[in-house]
């Protein structure tokens, strides 16, 4: 707890929350722009469509957003060359754990803001009925887990490399890879494609009538494996990061 509190003291006045708000604000602007002025037909499917439109945006933006968050948290140590000092006071594993929890709290805040926004947007646009809470809760939890897995990967890279260009380029590469995965299948076993596996809604487009039909997704066995892979990545990245950071020469 003391280490976690110290983490928050270290980032005081670093405006990390503001940075995250600005980046998430771009997502909000995108969502506002993409489905503005829906007609009656679109309003009927509005709540499902909202769940369909969030994952592609997350696939593109979240790897880079997570790399920015991890880099900001790790950079405090790199710039001040504080590892030696900190490791003599606390175990390196505890320090790593505190950084992971600190980032996770930011992610929780971001995810809550995103879902509150899409629900508010749905009501503001006058979508028919109410959101299906079970699906929205599942989407929220899986979105949180995907962000966490990417954050832990980025934290690992940001803590290991002094040159922050490496983790940020990895984040950008992840965004691009996620985009590619999106065109291949609606699920993926790679960490950057987790948002696709987590998508609660799917789409059926009829090329003849040009009508789009959204529906809640029924997971096949392979897709369920892809979803469970998100949690496996969390364990793998956290464990690898903790071990590698503990062994790192300061």
């Amino acid at each position, binding site marked *: 707890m003391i280490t976690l509190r110290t983490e928050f003291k270290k980032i005081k006045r670093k405006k990390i929350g503001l940075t995250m708000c600005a980046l998430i604000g771009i997502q909000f602007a995108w969502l506002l722009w993409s489905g503005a002025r829906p007609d009656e037909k679109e309003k009927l499917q509005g709540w499902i469509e909202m769940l369909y439109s969030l994952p592609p945006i997350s696939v593109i933006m979240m790897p880079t957003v997570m790399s920015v968050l991890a880099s*900001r948290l790790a950079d405090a140590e790199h710039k001040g060359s504080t590892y030696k000092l900190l490791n003599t006071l606390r175990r390196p594993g505890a320090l790593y754990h505190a950084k992971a929890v600190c980032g996770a709290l930011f992610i929780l805040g971001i995810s809550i803001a995103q879902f509150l926004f899409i629900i508010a947007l749905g009501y503001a646009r006058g979508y028919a009925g109410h959101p299906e809470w079970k699906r929205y809760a599942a989407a929220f939890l899986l979105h949180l887990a995907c962000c966490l897995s990417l954050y832990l990967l980025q934290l690992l890279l940001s803590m290991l490399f002094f040159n922050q260009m490496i983790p940020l380029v990895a984040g950008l590469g992840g965004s691009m890879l996620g985009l590619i995965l999106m065109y291949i299948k609606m699920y993926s076993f790679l960490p950057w494609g987790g948002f696709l596996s987590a998508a609660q809604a799917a789409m059926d487009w009829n090329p003849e009538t040009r009508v789009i039909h959204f529906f809640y997704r029924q997971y096949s066995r392979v897709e369920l494996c892809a979803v469970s892979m998100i949690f496996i990545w969390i364990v793998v990245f956290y464990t690898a990061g903790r071990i590698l950071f503990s062994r790192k020469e300061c």
Partner: protein
Amino acid sequence: MLTFYIRAVRAESLKLKRSPVWLAFFSLPIISAFFGTMNYTLNIGVLKSEWYSLWSQHTFFLCYLFMPALIGTYCSYLWRLEHTRHNWNSFLTAPLPLSTLYLGKLTQAVRVSVLANLWIFLLFYVCGRLAGIRSPFPREALEWYLCGTLGAVVICCVQLLFSLMIRSFAIPVGIALAGGIFGLYMTNRDYGMNYPYSLYCMGMRANNPNMEIHIPALLVNSAGYILVFAALSIFYLRVHERAAD
């Protein structure tokens, strides 16, 4: 003046020696080219304009989303060298005018952007041939390259200013990503010519090789942005110097 400039460029090159930063500019266009070509070959029945169709597949996401962020990362790296430890003291007391020192940084950023663009075009040509396109390489490609490179210089100037003002490495990269995404919106609304992050995509004709753009307007706007952002950076450097005193 020229001797000063060459000295500044050499100093920056020395700072970047053995740094693997160019790898990002090498690898990301490969991913984009691979994906674009794959998508082109899978949808060859719909995409009938050969080189033009392939070009849109290669460049859309790269130009709008990733190149601004990549240039932003490089610019952040250039200034990070000064932001760390006490390097500002040696940078600001170097026996060269501040404007020349800034031009040294800008030259490095422009150099890597020019090379990255060349690499994108080379990949485009190779992938086109591998995908079985036998028609001659489009002549307009030279125009796309020149206009795109000019747009990239604009992004370099904007990002150099942000990275100079913001000590964090990551925030300017986030700004560049957001700028690129917002550029998509601005281009869609026909305001692309007035928005610095859209100039690159418009110059490159990303996603729409048949797009008609007003080249004199692109030249004037790009030159304007380059001058304004370079002047702001140099002004900020001078203010920074006084603060250091």
